[in-house]
């Protein structure tokens, strides 16, 4: 019996040794490889800012820098709240209120991975819709910016929820709060936030991420084009406990992007698509494994065929948009007259393709290039022609047209005249160079040209435009 017992003991020791040996094969990560951990404190503001350090308030450019203060007369809970005095639109110190609250100190930050929302109580001096409140902006990489837009405040305290699109990303976040809002019909007002904190609500569900606003978009493009998806409708939506589907804007880094054909187009973690070759590629995305609605399918036509290089003597040219000349200052290449029914996108800014710049107008119905607001209008009284190169990116059908319209002395005894470019003067996927006699516009004067319109009335929707200039023969 003794012997047997002894044997068992030996066996145990032996097994133990083997186990220890095997276990000790598992090496621990070196100090360098272990993630630093950051505080997980939830509070941003209770009766005073919490854990933000001393230098944490950074107003947006042109905003009123003194808009925020701690109000010890108002609070939802405790003794104080955050007070925001939104200025009148004509306030010389700043026309709106907006800032980020960032934890002081390079390398600082909070670990917010255990929370699912930023929450706060809010009220205002009157019923008003706040422009945007969110988090994730640090004036550094701004990788995880989130914004809930158009927040309706009332004169009574009410709780608001801003969902985190994917909390697992926020291992070190410095930008704990951001806000931006303007006046109400020109007049300022005051609003308050209190008990601003991160929370694990457990009641946010049914995530519905979107890219390109949830639409499947198809575009033709060329090698070298870069498309920033952050400007193309990236959002996350959660169903709140009150049944409301709450959408927030979400920075590209919350998404995992995928290209169906990385030889044609790739996307980086900042949501920038780069076109590498001819062919077709579809960009899709997920947040935390949930597929985003919407996609971007790119038909890359290969290298961009550039417009013919102008050869006229610069002395005889007033150039609005051309790499061959020094351009006069313009207000814009797209006025976005959306309230007037304009649908046209593109032009602001022009695209850099091949060796220079080119304008791509899409969803064209009409679009204006302005030279009357903050720049000198154009005196073309000595000029004889308007030159423009147009490349239509779709089939040109009978009846299609692009009308060129000039406005002289915009808003002050303004006169206008137009010339219609008809379908037989245009070509699909090819540059055509148009030289239109200015007399054909029928203007009495052309000494204060302020707007040049391209009007297709939707007959043609996608065009490239280059080398827009007046010249004299």
């Amino acid at each position: 019996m003794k012997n047997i017992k002894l044997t068992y003991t030996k066996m145990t020791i032996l097994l133990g040794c083997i186990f220890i040996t095997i276990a000790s094969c598992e090496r621990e990560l070196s100090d360098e490889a272990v993630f630093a951990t950051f505080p997980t404190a939830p509070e941003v503001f209770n009766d005073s800012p919490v854990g933000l350090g001393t230098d944490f308030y950074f107003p947006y450019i042109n905003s009123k820098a003194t808009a925020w203060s701690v109000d010890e007369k108002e609070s939802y809970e405790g003794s104080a709240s955050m007070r925001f005095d939104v200025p009148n639109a004509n306030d010389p110190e700043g026309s709106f209120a907006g800032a980020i609250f960032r934890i002081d100190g390079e390398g600082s930050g909070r670990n917010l991975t255990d929370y699912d929302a930023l929450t706060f109580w809010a009220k205002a001096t009157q019923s008003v819709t706040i422009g945007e409140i969110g988090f994730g902006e640090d004036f550094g990489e701004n990788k995880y910016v989130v914004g809930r837009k158009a927040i309706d405040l009332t004169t009574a305290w009410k709780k608001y929820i801003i969902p985190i699109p994917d909390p697992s990303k926020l291992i070190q976040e410095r930008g704990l709060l951001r806000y931006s809002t303007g006046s109400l019909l020109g007049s300022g007002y005051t609003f308050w936030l209190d008990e601003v904190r991160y929370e694990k609500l457990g009641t946010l569900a049914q995530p519905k991420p979107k890219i390109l606003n949830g639409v499947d978009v198809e575009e033709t493009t060329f090698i070298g084009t870069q498309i920033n998806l952050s400007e193309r409708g990236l959002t996350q939506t959660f169903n709140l406990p009150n049944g409301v589907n709450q959408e927030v804007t979400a920075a590209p880094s919350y998404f995992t992007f995928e290209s169906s054909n990385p030889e044609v187009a790739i996307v980086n973690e900042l949501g920038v698509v780069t076109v590498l070759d001819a062919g077709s590629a579809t960009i899709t995305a997920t947040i935390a494994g949930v597929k985003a609605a919407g996609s971007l399918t790119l038909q890359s036509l290969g290298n961009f065929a550039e417009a013919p290089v102008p050869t006229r003597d610069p002395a005889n040219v007033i150039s609005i948009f051309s790499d061959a000349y020094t351009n006069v200052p313009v207000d814009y290449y797209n006025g976005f007259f959306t309230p007037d029914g304009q649908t046209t996108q593109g032009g602001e800014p022009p695209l850099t393709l091949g060796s220079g710049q080119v304008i791509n107008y899409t969803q064209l119905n009409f679009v204006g290039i302005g030279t009357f607001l903050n720049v000198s209008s154009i005196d073309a009284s000595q000029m004889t022609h308007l030159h423009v190169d147009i490349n239509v990116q779709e089939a040109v059908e009978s009846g299609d047209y692009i009308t060129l319209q000039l406005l002289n002395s915009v808003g002050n005894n303004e006169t206008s005249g137009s010339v219609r470019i008809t379908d037989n003067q245009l070509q699909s996927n090819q540059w055509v160079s148009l030289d239109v006699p200015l007399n054909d516009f029928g203007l009495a004067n052309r000494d204060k040209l302020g707007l040049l319109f391209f009007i297709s009335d939707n007959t043609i929707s996608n065009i490239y435009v280059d080398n827009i200039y007046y010249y004299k023969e």
Partner: protein
Amino acid sequence: MNKITAYKFKLPAIALPSLLLVLAFVAASCSTDQTQTVATFNKLSMADEFDVDGAPNSSIWNFDIGTGQNGWGNNELQYYTNRPENVVVQNGVLIITAREENFNGSAYTSARLLTKGKFQQQYGRWEARIRLPYGKGIWPAFWLLGDDKNGTEIWPEIGEIDIMEYLGDEPTRAFGTVHGPGYSAGESISKSYQLQNDRFDTGFHVFGIEWGPEYINFYINDVLYNQITPEDVPGEWVFDDDFYIILNMAVGGTLPGAPNAETTFPQRMLVDYVRVYEMNKN
């Protein structure tokens, strides 16, 4: 009332320690670590675990088909079918699917299963484990109706016990209700239960009742949140009879209102099991 008061005053001094002891015991039994012995219904009388893929077990379930009278009496908008698109057993769960589609004049389809004539029981413990759908206008339910004696009795005389009702635009709240003569529809006796830090559409939850003579206890998961007795109803107690089960998902209707632009379809109600127990007479 007077009688009890008189009795109390007549308590002999010697009984006081015993009374205190009883009181202490009652107080102690409120603590959560005490095992409650309310589950006297522990003999399984019916169970569908939904373990066989395909159509629901026809020995247990019937279907209501169509739109009933005035949308099943509630101006509901769906057309009930028994197509697999609306009701199927898959991967261990019963799936009732509400769809937005034009079907026989209705704008939505869904399904309604019932055990009428196939499984009926008086009293017992009735429970189901369900993951609920969400969205405005979505109205799922797990409920019981009393036997109508071959059409000789009508609602609300037959009695109705709603073990679970839920409105898709209030994803953290479910409610249990009884209907009877003098306390039906808007006057029904109801209580809701609010989940804390959780929702009914993100995971499975157990909805049940313990129903005996002169009481119905309503519970969700491990929380007993209501008891209804004859004293709580302003009419005849009609819950001493055979009842059958209904599982359905309505779309629209008087109570939830119509779906809105943000309601997404299809919506699915997942039922992991339905189990009914009776008193173990051994």
